[in-house]
């Protein structure tokens, strides 16, 4: 619109534009039958003037935020009873996972009365395609249970780390339960890592909320935007912002790679140990504190020890099933 002259807005024009923007948004969000033609018309309207775009974005951002209200939706039929029986099947699943570790490094599938359990062994990695179109990528030593029905989508992480790429469905929020916390997606890509008393949730795209479900712990919750990392323990959730690069590096395991940027040797070793049966040990604290930039294949223990030896002049010695790194 070359003739677009913002100073000469008629009074109330902004209100008319806002009404039109709300009209598009609610048509798209709340009613069935939004078509490509509708989208094309909307795109054309948005392209007409920046005033249209800003009014639309302003309302759209609130609509997106309002999606968080879905966490208040009553969860149909998720009583404690079924959950306890779940945990019983969980323990079984974990045992199976350990058995699997001895055989192939493949995912294991155990059907159960409520959904299916998937597991990877040490060093394993696999992608699960769920019936709703969502995908879960399991990292090393991971156990998840997926219960996807026409009514609900519930995934539980027993242990390990998983990357979620969720197909949004407003009527069926995608819920991930992990160590006393519930993560609810709002059209999202995210990665969850479960450790002993700690859950780490990194949001890659979209929005997700995490809240505690442990009745004994003090209730806490956080809503994440892309690049934010929530670290949840039994009694607190802290949120920090990561750079896009750092997030990419954290996800490099999906390509079978571990990327470290100015990391402590002890942290690198701990990370490699998550993937390999041949465990690395750092002999002393001062060696562990050496910092290193590295990009290592998840199964690259040998390559890594060679580099440690050649570049840093450290000694690497076998001791039983361990490799000890020392000066």
């Amino acid at each position, binding site marked *: 619109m070359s003739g677009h002259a913002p100073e000469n807005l008629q*009074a109330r024009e*902004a209100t008319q534009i806002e009404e039109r923007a709300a009209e598009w948004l609610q048509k798209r969000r709340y009613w069935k039958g939004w078509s490509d033609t509708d989208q094309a018309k909307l795109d054309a309207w948005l392209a007409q003037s*920046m005033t249209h775009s800003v009014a639309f974005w302003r*309302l759209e951002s609130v609509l997106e935020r309002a999606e968080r209200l879905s966490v208040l939706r009553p969860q149909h039929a998720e009583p404690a009873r079924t959950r306890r029986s779940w945990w019983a099947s969980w323990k079984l699943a974990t045992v199976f996972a350990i058995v699997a570790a001895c055989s192939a490094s493949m995912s294991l599938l155990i059907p159960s009365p409520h959904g299916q359990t998937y597991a990877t062994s040490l060093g394993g990695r696999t992608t699960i395609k769920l019936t709703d179109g969502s995908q879960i990528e399991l990292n090393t030593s991971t156990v998840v249970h997926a219960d996807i029905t026409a009514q609900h989508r519930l995934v539980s992480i027993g242990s390990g780390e998983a990357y979620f790429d969720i197909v949004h469905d407003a009527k069926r929020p995608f819920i991930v339960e992990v160590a006393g916390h519930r993560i609810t997606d709002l059209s999202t890509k995210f990665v969850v890592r479960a450790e002993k008393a700690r859950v780490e949730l990194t949001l890659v795209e979209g929005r997700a909320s995490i809240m505690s479900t442990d009745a004994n712990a003090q209730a806490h919750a956080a809503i994440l935007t892309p690049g934010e990392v929530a670290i949840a323990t039994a009694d607190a959730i802290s949120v920090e912002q990561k750079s896009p690069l750092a997030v990419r590096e954290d996800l490099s395991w999906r390509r079978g790679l571990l990327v470290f940027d100015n990391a402590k040797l002890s942290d690198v070793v701990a990370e490699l140990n998550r993937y390999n049966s041949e465990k690395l040990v750092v002999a002393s604290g001062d060696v562990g504190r050496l910092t290193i930039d590295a990009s290592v294949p998840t199964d690259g223990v040998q390559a890594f020890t060679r580099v440690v030896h050649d570049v840093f002049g450290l000694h690497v010695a076998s001791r039983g099933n361990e490799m000890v790194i020392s000066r």
Partner: protein
Amino acid sequence: MAEISETGREIADPRQHGAAVNTRTVAMWFIREVLPLEPILMQYLHHNWRNRSDIVDLRQEVYARVCLSAQKQIPDHPRRFVLTTARNLLINKLRDAHVVPIEIIADVDALGMAMEEPGPDQIAIARDELRRLQAALDQLPARCREAMTLAHIEGLAGHEIAARMGISPSMVSAHLNKGLRILADIMHGEVFTAGEKS
């Protein structure tokens, strides 16, 4: 303020001349950096513009100018940039109306400096978000609130809401439309006085 090139006159749509920054990036930046400044912007406009009925137009105009500039280059200091844009717009308006501003419009530099400080704790905001949304819902007119609650908490689609409320789809549309707009005013920090939206 040498780093700010906003002149208040360069308003040609750069999409005509090949924008340097893609629209999605501008939208993300606008939502992330500019919209949270709405309470400050509204306060500034209310302080410096007598005619209340112009305020919504002015706000939208500021947003449009800021985003047109962002298409060329994303500004480094959003707070300053938004307020400077607002000031320039008001000055132009006064000039066009042949009104001589008697009192100088509030010193954006001072405002900008104070406002470049980190905002309230982002984590606290995230934790409060759900509570804020609930409180905002509570402020909606009854039928609007009912429609929005059915849509967002119950997860119903438009026709289901119509059936549940016993009203026509077009009435549901009207309630949702209005509900969304009021919610935007509340969530972006403007104090809403009942009856303002029609």
